[in-house]
């Protein structure tokens, strides 16, 4: 056996070390699944070689893929999207499309994969143009579906890698938009690394929800991978990420892998200690109860939340229902989704359903909301009610009320982006309109509905004492509150240091909100990132916050942290944090609670 290594020109370059912002804890090593927004999905291209698969076989494969996707989306409770995918599956197997593509390919002579794929794309485009020419809005949307199907079949002929990642992949992207992440099957990703984004970017939130590691804001990531990919090696390129330190290693060597592996084992062991604690209700060492709730983004996350010991849902984000599709979800479809979560948690564990927080960094093209120059300061959340999209929120409240009736549980409704008392009154009007409408239609609805607001706009926190008498609960969104208080866009990677929710300026507003809630006798929760940071949780409880809502994966660690400290200790810690001059000082003392 020779020890000769392959020639230097074909050898994969050594490991490239990069660093970013920790997005979600843990260590993962796996093959890269690359997502590029502009080109869709990158992968191998067999263009010049003869096509190895017939058009009709490729079309059948595409139809099977689409059927599978439809089934998956349907189990997530998104029936209308499933309909569209099922229609696309039919289109993929359509004799008209296949016949025309075969005719065109024959006419063009050459049987190379790129010519055959081109014939499919052109045939689909011609059919799409025919549909688009008919003056009808619905058919115009179908035209886009036909082109999409053509692209999928062509991708199979060109042997582009399938769009779903292999199990255990690490998603690498400039940014992973929510519309893409909702399409991914659970369990496919072992980790996420993005070049853009911050701790509160959606890729990071998703990673924490899935309990997988993530590193965000990794500059030079794409370049490092391109450099490593162009060496002609056959084995899939690996990447290792450390979600605690923010370290990313492209093409890690055996030594790097060994070091990370031993750290990963140590982490798993310490997490087991936290998990070994019985999953009872949250409380401090001296028994002061702190309700531990889950943030969920899809109905199918309810089971995981219950398993993790959630005492309810403090934030059910509904915007995911509105994304990755071409029309708004119908009232019936929403009833189905909300009802399933309410029923799962039953009458004794509250489920707070947040009205669609659309706008900001969560754009929904089909709503036709004009883009604001600064989307975070524009029309988003409850502010939709000041536009022609008002009916969207009324429909949602109707659906929530109906779902509560069916599930036999009192639904909690929460409005995002509330700034003023007028906003609070608007919420009451929307609710009255929804309930009166249901009664007029003779549709059964929940007799009771608990309404509350997100406190994330500084104005709402500053005047919390004046808003509290008009609502039934507050839930502080520390991510947005921090970005508004410190005037630092939460999606800006270069402003990472200004995005620390433990900044004393943010904590002062949290305290004002908690005090206002206490004197009005209403509950106050935190559903932002800070609640899932065990140190943040300690400070929040010390400030008087009674409920913490977080990704289910963080519940164990938070329960453990609370269990280890007495409430008096936390109040004292919170006072010192409020008196600090910088966020860094708070972090220092939080690490050493006296």
């Amino acid at each position: 056996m020779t020890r000769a290594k392959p020639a230097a020109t074909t050898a994969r370059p050594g490991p490239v070390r990069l660093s970013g912002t920790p997005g979600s804890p843990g260590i993962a090593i796996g093959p890269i699944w690359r997502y590029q927004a502009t080109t869709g999905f990158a992968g191998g291209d067999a263009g010049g070689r003869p096509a190895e698969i017939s058009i009709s076989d490729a079309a059948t494969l595409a139809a099977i893929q689409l059927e599978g996707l439809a089934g998956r989306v349907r189990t997530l409770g998104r029936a209308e999207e499933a309909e569209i995918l099922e229609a696309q599956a039919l289109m993929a197997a359509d004799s008209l499309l296949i016949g025309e593509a075969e005719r065109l390919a024959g006419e063009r002579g050459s049987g190379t994969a790129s010519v055959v794929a081109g014939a499919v794309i052109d045939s689909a485009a011609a059919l799409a143009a025919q549909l688009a020419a008919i003056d009808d809005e619905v058919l115009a949307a179908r035209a886009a579906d036909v082109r999409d199907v053509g692209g999928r079949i062509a991708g199979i002929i060109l042997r582009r890698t399938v769009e779903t990642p292999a199990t255990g992949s690490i998603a690498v992207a400039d940014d992973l938009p929510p519309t893409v992440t909702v399409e991914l099957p659970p369990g496919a990703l072992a980790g996420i690394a993005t070049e853009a984004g911050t701790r509160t970017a959606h890729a990071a939130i998703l990673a924490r929800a899935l309990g997988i590691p993530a590193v965000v804001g990794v500059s030079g990531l794409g370049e490092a991978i391109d450099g490593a990919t162009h060496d002609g090696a056959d084995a899939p390129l690996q990447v290792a990420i450390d979600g605690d330190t923010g370290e990313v290693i492209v093409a890690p060597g055996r030594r790097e892998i060994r070091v990370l592996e031993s750290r990963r084992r140590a982490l798993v062991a310490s997490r087991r200690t936290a998990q070994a604690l019985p999953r009872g209700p949250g409380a401090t060492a001296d028994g002061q109860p702190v309700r531990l709730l889950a943030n969920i983004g899809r109905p199918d996350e309810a089971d995981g939340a219950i398993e993790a010991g959630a005492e309810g849902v403090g934030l059910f984000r509904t915007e995911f229902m509105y994304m990755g599709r071409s029309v708004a979800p119908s009232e019936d479809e929403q009833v189905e989704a909300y009802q399933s979560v309410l029923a799962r948690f039953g009458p004794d564990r509250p489920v707070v359903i947040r009205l669609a927080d659309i706008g900001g960094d969560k754009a929904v093209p089909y709503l036709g909301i004009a883009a604001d120059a600064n989307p975070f300061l524009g029309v988003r959340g409850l502010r939709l009610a000041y536009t022609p999209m008002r009916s969207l929120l009324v429909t949602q409240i109707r659906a929530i009320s109906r779902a509560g009736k069916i599930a036999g549980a009192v639904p909690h409704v929460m409005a995002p982006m509330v700034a003023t008392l007028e906003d609070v009154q608007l919420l009451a009007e929307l609710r009255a309109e929804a309930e009166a409408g249901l009664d007029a239609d003779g549709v059964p609805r929940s007799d009771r509905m608990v309404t509350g607001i997100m406190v994330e706009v500084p104005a709402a926190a500053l005047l919390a004492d004046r808003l509290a008498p008009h609502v039934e609960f507050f839930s502080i969104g520390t991510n947005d509150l921090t970005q508004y208080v410190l005037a630092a866009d939460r999606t800006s990677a270069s402003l990472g240091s200004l995005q620390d929710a433990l900044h004393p300026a943010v904590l002062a507003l949290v305290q004002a909100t908690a005090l206002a809630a206490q004197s009005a006798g209403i509950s106050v929760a935190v559903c932002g990132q800070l609640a899932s940071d065990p140190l943040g949780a300690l400070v929040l409880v010390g400030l008087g916050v009674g409920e913490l809502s977080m990704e289910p994966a963080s519940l164990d660690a938070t329960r453990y942290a609370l269990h280890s400290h007495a409430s008096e200790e936390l109040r004292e810690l919170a006072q010192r944090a409020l008196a600090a001059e910088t966020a860094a000082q708070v972090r220092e003392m939080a690490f050493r609670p006296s």
Partner: protein
Amino acid sequence: MQSVELVIENRSGLHARPGKVFCLRAAQWTSAVRLENLTRGAGPVDAKSILGLLTLGVSQGQRVRLTTEGSDEAAALADLVALIQDGLGEGETSTV
């Protein structure tokens, strides 16, 4: 060969889901099934093709001619006419 003329009454015509429902049902019959949009003067097309159906652009209130031809043409025609008259699976209208 058998044929019948009828008006499509459901809200979204033969566009989205109803088109799919019709196409899937047509495909279950041995006979050839063809559909022509008389109002727009489009077709006839193979009704077992969803794309063919969509290119007819049949909207609510438009008149179509349905033709079946083959060993089970009478049963196929009766079944498909009943399906159209039942509203093509388009039940309750949704809000938004």
